[in-house]
């Protein structure tokens, strides 16, 4: 356990620069978004009310109040989030391959540590999770700060104030990242964890069997998807809606745990018996 925690600490320190840079980009881009969107709204209001002499009530009726939703729907807000998602996706592969590539083959050292090789797998998957939850947590802190900036820039009467929860629940894409219930959280992030574990297993297949391993990895991925969807497929096409929704949910959770366990077992086997440096 101690070695696992040490490895997590070590792996996380290795991503901390990339993590900080992505957070910095997110913060700066979203702040610029708040300022740009607010100013463009205020410029529009100025133009209509002072140049075209439109009464304030008519302006508000025609153009509506400014709310954080306008910012949250802009690319200033979503762009950096997409960048962070891409960063995590890239890192899922990079976290393994960087230890093999280049002059310094660090994988030698990792595989020769006096600890179970599965700890390397667990440490890397934990790092991906920490990175993901880190982005989500910091984004949750950023939104209220951005709302405060919006409040400071746009006068009260032109503004519709929304809380963080209202913002999140109003945009379907955001509910993926910020689930509103425990079940949604388990579903979204459980599925994410499963996907990462299957991808890790695929990467280890490739590292163990090279070209044949890519094929084995793809087959493993396809098999994992089929196993995961099996209850749904049976329910829909074979058993004529046989299950109650709760039964279906339980079956899906069981299948998810099965795929996760299989990924851990196969990865452990590959790391111990088949991997080549």
């Amino acid at each position: 356990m101690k070695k696992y925690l040490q490895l997590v600490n070590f792996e996380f320190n290795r991503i901390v620069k990339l993590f900080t840079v992505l957070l910095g980009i997110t913060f700066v881009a979203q702040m610029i978004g708040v300022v740009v969107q607010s100013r463009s709204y205020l410029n529009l209001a100025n133009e209509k009310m002072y140049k075209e002499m439109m009464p304030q009530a008519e302006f508000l009726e025609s153009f509506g109040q400014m709310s954080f939703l306008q910012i949250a729907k802009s690319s200033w807000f979503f762009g950096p989030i997409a960048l962070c998602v891409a960063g995590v996706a890239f890192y899922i592969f990079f976290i393994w391959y960087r230890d093999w590539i280049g002059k310094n083959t660090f994988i030698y050292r990792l595989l020769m540590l006096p600890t179970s090789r599965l700890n390397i797998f667990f440490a890397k998957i934990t790092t991906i999770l920490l990175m993901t939850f880190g982005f989500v947590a910091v984004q949750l802190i950023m939104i209220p700060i951005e709302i405060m900036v919006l409040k400071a820039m746009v006068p009260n009467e032109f503004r519709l104030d929304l809380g963080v929860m209202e913002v999140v629940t109003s945009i379907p894409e955001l509910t993926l990242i910020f689930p509103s219930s425990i079940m949604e959280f388990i579903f979204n992030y459980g599925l994410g964890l499963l996907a990462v574990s299957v991808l890790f297993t695929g990467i280890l297949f490739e590292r163990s069997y090279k070209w044949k391993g890519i094929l084995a990895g793809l087959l493993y991925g396809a098999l994992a998807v089929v196993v995961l969807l099996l209850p749904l497929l049976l329910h829909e096409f074979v058993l004529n809606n046989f299950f109650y929704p709760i039964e279906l949910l339980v079956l899906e959770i069981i299948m998810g745990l099965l795929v996760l366990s299989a990924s851990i077992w196969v990865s452990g086997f590959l790391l111990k018996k088949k991997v080549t440096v």
Partner: protein
Amino acid sequence: MIEVKEIEKRYGRKKILKGVSFTAEKGEITCLIGINGVGKTTILKAIMALTPLHKGQILIDGKPIDKHSFEKITFIPDSLTMLPHMTINEAMEFMKDFYTCWNQKRANELLGFFRLDPSSRISSLSKGNTAKVNLLLGLALDVDYVLMDEPFSGIDMFSREEIANVFTSHLIENRGVIITTHEIGDIEHLLDKVVLLDDGLVTKEFSAEAARENEGKSVIDVMREVYQK
């Protein structure tokens, strides 16, 4: 004792090792010799479970390798196994964190022996100094067996001499060493046992001292006999 028993290894369709067997005793320096591509590095990797075998078995003190074995045996490959952005100090910290057999006193001694600056960044080191750091990280572990892959490869004469001096020092004493090298001349007089490899097989396994004493032949003489016949 390290026992390598009838090991076989293929890369694709090419059979690299066709049933290699030999033993390496604790307290002895065993040298694996053979032309490039004969599978010397593969044997060392296989001992450390860094590459799978198709057949055969390797035992360390009678047991197959497991996670605990890495406190007992270490491998010093010809490439550095630490992150380039680390300093030598940070690399030593890493080793200290993960290995209970890490001996800081010996590490400090090796730093002095090789005249290395612990605050140097690994990526900024010359090839000779990189090889020395690699040796330092391996030899500062209190392990029974040390595997070294081409420790003299591509480094200058003075660094070679410094590394060769390690073999006559207490840093190696009482340990079992398996070394692969082309630069046999640097350490010929220090070898206890020689394993000659050719075409995926052990062509000759002999005691260097016995060859010297009984037949009046150096290791190079025996190599000539085997490889040039």
